[in-house]
Structures are given as C-alpha cells and as structure tokens.
C-alpha cells in the first residue's frame, strides 16, 4: 500500500538524521503541551465543567486530540497546498495516474505526530480510568468511530480551505486559524459557551461534532445537548459526509486550477 510505504520511507529518511528525528518527536510532544496543561488543570483543580465530570472533559480532549493527530499526520499536505502550488508540485501531481488529493497526502508525513500519539495514549489512559462508562463492545466501537469522525471532520475543514488555496495562497492563514480555533474550543463541552458561540460551532464551523457530541453519547448526557440525541449519535457519520462533500469541492476547485509561472 502506497501510504504505508511512503510513511516507511519517510521514517527511514528521517532516521538517517537521528538527532533531528528525536527532536521532531519531542516537538510533537511539546506542541501538545497546552492540551496536557489543560487536562492537568481540569483534573486537579475542578470537579468538572458545565455539569460534566473531569473524566468526561478529559475524554472530549482525548478524542479531539486523537483526531487532530491523525489528521495532521496523514493530511498535513492540505495545509501546504499554497506552497505545493507555488513550487509546481501540484503540476507534477497532475502528471501522475493517481488522484491529486492522495498525492497531496503522500507528499509529506508529519513526523512530530508520533510524539502527539504518545500524548494521546496517555490522555486516553487517564480518561478511561476516570470516566464512569461500561465499556461494552458497542461503546468501544463508537469510541473508535468517534476518533475516525474527529479526524475526518478536521480533514474536511482543511480540505475545503485547501481547495481554495489551489488558487489563493493567503488561504493558508485561514487554515492555521481554523486549526487554532479547533484546538482552543474542541476540548470543551461546548454548552458552557454562550448560545451564539455554540450555534456557530454546530452550524458554521461544526467543531461540536468532532468530540463534544460523541462523548455526550458515550457518557449518556445527550439530553442536555442543543441538538436531538439522534444527531449527536450520528456525529461520526455526519463528519464522514462532510468529508465526502469536501472532496467534491476539492475536485471542483482542481478543475479551475491555474498553475503558476506561465
């Protein structure tokens, strides 16, 4: 499989510079320090947030961070579309019998995410110990689906913006802002925010579907949600649908691609 082969080659290439490799993993861990700090504060200082226990909140942060780690690891290329266009790489991708989107994925594997994965593992371990959930096979399956959904949702948003970046280089700033926004608000139960803010995070920039709604389903707190329980349960499916829609948008924008330099 090309993706795995590419990751293997990337790791092999990175290992040739051992100090750099270790540094990249360390950066991945340090990069998530805000999430770790947040989790530590939640666990040690507060009994919970907005009626949710510290464990519930930590589970929200864990699902969000896991999704982000996979999205950044495999799809970091979407945030480089401006540079890929300027360097003529998109031109080169169009000359190969493989979808351009997949080649954008294959262009670069974000090594620091191995460090991010270590943080995710520690957070999940802590959250699972703290939450009061009977881990039936269905719930374990739903948790996995939630992480996949969180990944696809972040990828969907970056895909929509990345498609714009094929012709507008400044969109990269919007991509960075979106990631910051998801990192800032995606770790919380969003009902602690004013109504206008959570409405934005449900209907405009649907961060609520990333981890908040799925964890509400897992912890049985759907009655306090601003959407019907069925919608919350369908979060991973909705994220997958948004991802497919984003892919459609990518294809439309790719047809309008104008290349650079003549």
């Amino acid at each position, binding site marked *: 499989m*090309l993706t795995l*082969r*590419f990751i293997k*080659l*990337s790791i092999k*290439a990175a290992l040739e510079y051992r100090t750099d490799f270790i540094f990249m993993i360390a950066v991945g861990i340090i990069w998530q320090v805000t999430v770790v700090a947040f989790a530590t504060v939640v666990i040690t200082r507060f009994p919970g947030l907005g009626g949710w226990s510290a464990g519930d909140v930590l589970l929200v942060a864990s699902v969000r961070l896991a999704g982000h780690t996979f999205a950044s690891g495999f799809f970091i290329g979407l945030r480089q579309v401006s540079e890929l266009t300027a*360097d*003529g*790489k998109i*031109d*080169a991708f*169009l*000359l*190969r*019998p*493989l979808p351009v989107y997949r080649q954008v994925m*294959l*262009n*670069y594997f974000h090594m620091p995410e191995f460090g991010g994965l270590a943080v995710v593992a520690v957070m999940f371990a802590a959250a699972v110990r703290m939450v009061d959930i009977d881990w039936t096979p269905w719930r374990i399956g739903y948790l996995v689906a939630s992480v996949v959904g969180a990944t696809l949702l972040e990828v969907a948003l970056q895909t929509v913006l990345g498609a714009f970046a094929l012709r507008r280089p400044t969109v990269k700033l919007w991509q960075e802002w979106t990631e910051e926004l998801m990192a800032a608000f995606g770790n919380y139960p969003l009902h602690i925010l004013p109504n206008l803010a959570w409405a934005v995070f449900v209907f405009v920039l649907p961060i609520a579907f990333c981890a908040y709604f799925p964890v509400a389903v897992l912890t049985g707190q759907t009655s306090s949600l601003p959407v019907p329980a069925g919608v919350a349960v369908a979060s991973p499916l909705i994220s997958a649908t948004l991802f497919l829609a984003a892919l459609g948008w990518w294809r439309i924008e790719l*047809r*309008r*691609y*104008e*290349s650079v*330099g*003549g």
Partner: protein
Amino acid sequence: MDGPAIEARRLRKVFTTSVRRPGFVGALRSLVAPERADTVAVEEVSFSVARGELLALLGPNGAGKSTTIKMLAGVLVPSDGEARVAGQVPHLDRKVNARRIGAVFGQRTQLWWDLPAVESFTMLRDIFKIEQEAYRTRLEELDGLLELASFWQRRPRQMSLGQRVRCDLAAALLHDPPIIFLDEPTIGMDAVAKEQVREFIRYQVEQRSRTVILTTHDMAEVARLARRVLLVNEGRVVYDGGLAELQKEYGSGWKVRVTFATGEVPPGIPGPGEKVGDAHVFAGVDPTAKRELMRSLLDRDDVTDLETHGDDLEDIMAAVYRKRAAVTA
C-alpha cells in the same frame, strides 16, 4: 493508433485576475468591489506533431509556451479549443494521459524533496504500476545514459541543478511514455550537463522514436536538436515550419567580425562597424556590400583576424517577431 501524436486545435487559455487599484484607498476599493480582468495567455494555437518528431516550441518569456504545454499535459483545462495527445483529451482522461506522457519542467522537480532520488523512483514505479523487471531494465538504461548511480542516493535538495534535472528526466521516463514534454530542461546548467541532456533528448527521439515537444531559450540547443520549430508570440503562433526554411526566409543577413592590428577601423573600409571587445563587427543584408567589404579586408596586412557568418538563430527569431508585429500593426 493512426494520426498525429499531438494535436492542438484553436487552443485558447484565458486567466482571470484581480486588478489592483493604486494607492491605499484604491486597495480598499479593490477589497470591497474587486475588478476582474482577463489575460489571454494562448490564443487560437493550432499545430500537430507526428509520432517520433521533435518540435521546438519557441518564444519570448510570457509568449504562452508553458501554458500550451500544460494544456497538452492535462495540467490546465483549455478555455476553448481542443487538445489531443495520443488520441485522448488530456484533461478529460488525465490518468490515461499521464501514462502516455512524461514531462520535465526545468525549474521545478517532481521528486520527493526529502527522499533519496532512488526512493522517488521506486515510489513512481508503484504509482505507475511498473513491473519490477521492466523497472530494473529501464533504470539501468537511464543510468547508462544519464550517469545517475553516483548521486541517486542523495536527496534532491543535496544535488546540483544538473544532477537534479537528470534525475527528473529519469523519473519522467521510467514508465516508458511515447510522448515527452520538456519545458526548458537545460536552464541554468553548465555546458557539460547541457551537452549530456541534449544527447539524451536526441537519443530518445532518434533511437526510441519518442515524440518530444521542447521549449528552450537556448538557440544552440534548437540548432542541434530540432528540424521543425513553432514560434509563438503573445499567445499566437507566428511561425510553424522547418528550421532550415526559417533560416532561409528570415535569415538573409550577414556578419563579418574583424580584428585590426591598430584596434581601430582604418580609412577606406566601408561602414563604421560595431566595436565588440577587440574586434569590429560589420553587418548587413545586401550581399554586394558584403563582397565589397571582404575585398577591401582581404588585401590588408593589418587584419589579424577575420570571421564571417550568417545570422544566428536569435537574430532570425527577432526578425520573425519584428516582421510579424509589423504585419499585425
């Protein structure tokens, strides 16, 4: 398959850009009510290339050469007209087209920046689904022609320009495409590397019968490789024909380069001549004037060096553009 390898019919490409108004207020106005303008990069370009032919696509910067190649390669969608490469419409059958073409854009690489070049080759082997035995044979052949093995374990960022382009040429031909697009493949190279790439291109046309479209600003390269040239200017074709015919039609001028022992043009020599280094260059289009000049020079003892030749290709191209501009004005 019968018919030409490449066919362009009334190809047109228009780019829409935002017009920035001058000044701060103008910039704000552009933000609120952006003004759009169309730039025609390629206008009604028609030509065909037979299988096994090399066509030199020439023109000044911004003439539309690269845009034309990108439409033929399936990178850009034409605004109007039709392109067919090996019978397929490139942008509609992009993946099929990709298997039939190889392309090198001299100033950019299609190799993975952080992987050794040889690993990029194996990635391309998998992407193009090349069988292992065929891959090994082709890589051996390409190594024989381009001497890649001494540096293919390096990453592109650690290579010289010449090494990087040679790897790019190999990468473009690994899947054995019958059609190749080369957009300024020798730009910025030293003479030795240029010569190696030229020989490689010649081999691909003469020995492997590949169809090649080559763009270059190096007229020595054109003279060495091409029999047919397509000149474009401001998006339009201004000449399509043989190189020899082009020289015959537009290159009737002469140049005589003389070095005098005194360093100055002695009295009695017709024309002032242009001082170029130690020498003086006399030029014109009238053959009688040339004969008169030569007679007066050959009888002199103070002529230390004498060289005569016709217009070079750059002069000829300039003459074509001037003549066509005068016609369309």
